[in-house]
């Protein structure tokens, strides 16, 4: 089992959620994060003073899924969340050794 962490632009959340649920993916966890990267921040004004805000609002989507779904999910997310502009974000894939469904105590792939 793998975990996909996709850092995307906030307004892409709904579309990405839709393509994922369109696959056999049943669960998603979303966190509001702030990102710093190649995309420049913006300047804000405060009584005539200008200051730079480096961190931009991003959304992190975490999905744990079976190995066989990984490639397809990456593809779908990439397709959907890409605007072609810098700052579209990243997907990180990492190993998950065990999954437990709290309600039932089920383990492994059936618990996803």
């Amino acid at each position: 089992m793998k975990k996909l962490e996709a850092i995307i632009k906030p307004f892409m959340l709904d579309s990405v959620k839709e393509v994922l649920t369109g696959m056999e993916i049943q669960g998603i966890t979303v966190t509001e994060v702030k990102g710093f990267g190649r995309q420049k921040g913006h300047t804000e004004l405060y009584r005539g003073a200008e200051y730079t805000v480096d961190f931009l609002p991003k959304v992190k989507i975490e999905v744990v899924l079976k190995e066989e779904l990984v490639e397809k999910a990456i593809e779908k997310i990439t397709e959907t969340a890409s605007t072609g502009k810098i700052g579209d974000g990243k997907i990180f894939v990492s190993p998950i050794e065990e999954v437990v469904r709290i309600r039932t105590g089920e383990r492994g792939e059936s618990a996803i």
Partner: protein
Amino acid sequence: MKKISVYLFAFTAILLLNIDVAFAEDAPAKIVAADTAWMLISSALVMLMVPGLALFYGGMDRGKNILSTLMLSFISLGVITVQWVLFGYSLAFGGDIGHFIGDFSYVALNGVGLEPNGTIPHQLFMVFQMMFAILTPALISGAIVGRMKFTTYIVFIVLWSTLVYDPLCHWVWGGGWMSDMGALDFAGGLVVHISSGVSALAACIILGKRKGFPREAMPPHNLPLTLIGAGLLWFGWFGFNAGSALAADTVAVSAFVVTQIATGAAILGWVFTEWIHRGKPTFLGAASGAVAGLVAITPAAGFVGPISALLIGALAGLICYLAVVAKHRFGYDDALDVFAVHGLGGTVGALATGLFASAAIGGTDGLFFGNPSQFGTQFISVAAAWIYSFGVTFIILKVLDATMGLRVSEEEEVTGLDLSLHGERGYTI
């Protein structure tokens, strides 16, 4: 005999009628219900400015200090109410001592009853003035948010009120030397705004910068609060300025109208200047401009006409914006720009009164209406208010620094004063 009695009667009757008329128009010794109604609501309006100010400041500060910032204003409602009752009112409005300060005749409001003082009960005048005394130290707090010890702050505002506000108030409104000299200050450009603004400058210089200033950005944490504050301030300011007529008369109306006009113009003055300078019109600019306009028209209301008010407001918006920008050159950390807005805004207003005052409105002409000496008088009074406020505040704070200490510890500052001083947090959403 009959003839005489007739004439006598006629005379008496006419006398009675005349007295009646005179009574209504000139006699200072009769309470007028309409004036009482207006001054009651005006007093309430000025009270509302204190929470308004708390919100205006609070929204601009960082979230970790929000309650602390609110508290600095709010506590003045407790501390100065009591100070004013016990001796503050007496110092400001008690029998004159050397044109400098009031005596102790009104201590504990002794002798301050419901008898007429002008056309309103004496206690009403006292409570209206109380609200000014409460608001003024709270204004200073904007400069020193985020780093001052609360205990010291309480002692500071008692001392400041007693040693700076009460004398200045006496000079201008209590029969002191400034009123003798003919200085015009309708609703407190000198007494309230220059005094607090210049003292704020002294305070933030002595207190030093907030940790991280100016390197670290300290953006306002909740600007809708600032809007609420600005709205309540503006609303309350009608009581502050038009109430300073002490009657529901044409002077009050004139003061009300120019207050509205100057404030509107100052919004535009600030916003357009910023728009040109930085490329964007900011909301905080609009709110700040409004306050700058309100400050600047305060001394002038009741003395100037609508078009003068338009110019004074626009000018105040422009100048206060530039002053806020210039702050960064000088390097002091006047956190919420009390000096730029109140100190300089009040100065603009007090000097402009010497220029734009028109005898047709308030009985005195300014320079533009052919009376250059009034500008001189205004200038002297402004200079005196600056020097006195700065000097005495400086001394008070130096003494407090040496005795109680002014600043919280670095850890308390970093944690935020809400948690470290008050054991609370503003938001648990």
